[in-house]
């Protein structure tokens, strides 16, 4: 890595660390306790940023997939795959933190409303993305196929959301998230979103860089065998 990129990486790492420390402080000490649901509400400060990042991750995969199919440069495939992996991790966290919060706050693990169902389906689509990558033998084929899934899967998201929304308005949901956010809560949320977004960028950069190095080694190895 050249010096400039290394410096940029270091700055981003420092920024991410600082933001995460600030976020932790704000979530546990600075933000006031919500009056209806109590301490459990603080999961919200992790749940919302993680959900936002998971959607960002799949959008990045979508764009990188299109770029890969258009340009056939492996770096776009590396970014798409790295982003999908991080996206799956973050979506898993969403699906874990959400029910924990819901059970503690409202007494139910799950409800089939539009957002939860869309997250679940998104999770399944991108697990399929990762499965195809592991089951398609050659690098070029797995890159092409997963790029197609990255595109086709992302298009599905708004359709799923609309369909479930329509379905569930016939059966109104039982959860009502009432009350707005006070100034301090909003600040905490914004800092958390920033912290997790920087974390996402760092993870994807590391992962994509690693994949590119792995691909380069593979190429060298196959050249050596010839």
């Amino acid at each position, binding site marked *: 890595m050249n010096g400039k990129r290394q410096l940029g990486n270091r700055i981003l790492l420092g920024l991410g660390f600082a933001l995460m420390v600030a976020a932790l402080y704000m979530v546990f000490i600075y933000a006031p306790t919500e009056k209806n649901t109590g301490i459990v509400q603080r999961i919200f400060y992790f749940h919302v940023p993680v959900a936002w990042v998971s959607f960002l991750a799949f959008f990045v995969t979508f764009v990188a997939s299109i770029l890969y199919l258009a340009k056939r440069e492996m770096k776009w495939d590396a970014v798409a795959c790295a982003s999908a992996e991080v996206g799956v991790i973050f979506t898993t966290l969403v699906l874990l933190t959400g029910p924990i919060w819901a059970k503690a706050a409202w007494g139910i693990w799950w409800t089939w409303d539009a957002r939860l169902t869309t997250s679940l*389906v998104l999770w399944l689509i991108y697990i*399929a993305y990762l499965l195809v990558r592991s089951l398609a033998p050659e690098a070029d084929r797995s890159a092409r196929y997963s790029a197609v899934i990255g595109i*086709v899967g992302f298009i599905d998201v708004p*359709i*799923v959301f*609309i369909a479930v929304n329509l*379905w569930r308005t016939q059966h109104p949901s039982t959860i009502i998230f009432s009350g707005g956010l006070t100034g301090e809560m909003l600040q905490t949320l914004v800092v958390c979103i920033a912290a997790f977004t920087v974390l996402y960028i760092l993870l994807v950069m590391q992962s994509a860089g690693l994949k590119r190095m792995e691909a380069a080694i593979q190429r060298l190895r196959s050249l050596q065998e010839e």
Partner: protein
Amino acid sequence: MKKTFGKIFVIFWKDMLTEIRSREMIIPVLVFALLVLVIFSFAFGTGADTAAPGVLWVALTFGGVTGLNRVFAVEKENSRMEGLMLCPVDRAVIYWGKVAGSFTFMLALALVVTPIFLALFNLPLFLPGLALIIALALLGFAAVGTLFSAMAVNTRAREILLPILFLPVVVPVIIAAVQATGPVLAGMPWEEMVIYLQIITAFDIIYLVAATLVFEFVIEE
């Protein structure tokens, strides 16, 4: 334009002739779909108002997936994929030919499964609304399933990979189809289900277009 339709028809008719002469795909898949219908009736009970739409759509979905598995598998097995690729046609033509084939196959499946389902649940047999829902939804299945079948056939665990890819993506079709089928079976007016048909139609159009655009990337060697 007419030539393109001609080419699509040739690919479609090749598959149809193969199937009509051998009947090796339709009969096992049909039996499987009927079994799913029966097993799920045991599982969910035979109450016409609550479980009936679900039972029908589970049978059509799983029967459809089983049929879709075979769309490109026959080509791959007999090394006919290379022959197909050598045809001097636009890759999209191959896609549309295969979609026409899968759609016809699933329609044939539905033509047998649905009357049996209606009889088992003591529902009226003549339901044009239901026919429309089934046609639109199966078109969506064909559009998505053909694309993923071409992908899955080249991977290691092809039989299980197709459902894993296909089912999450067609979730909106299944939700809309089940929600539209309920009112139709209960004899309610058209307006109840029009919005669901719109969703399925939008899905069909979006996916037929998107798959046409990306199919060449899937099928190139």
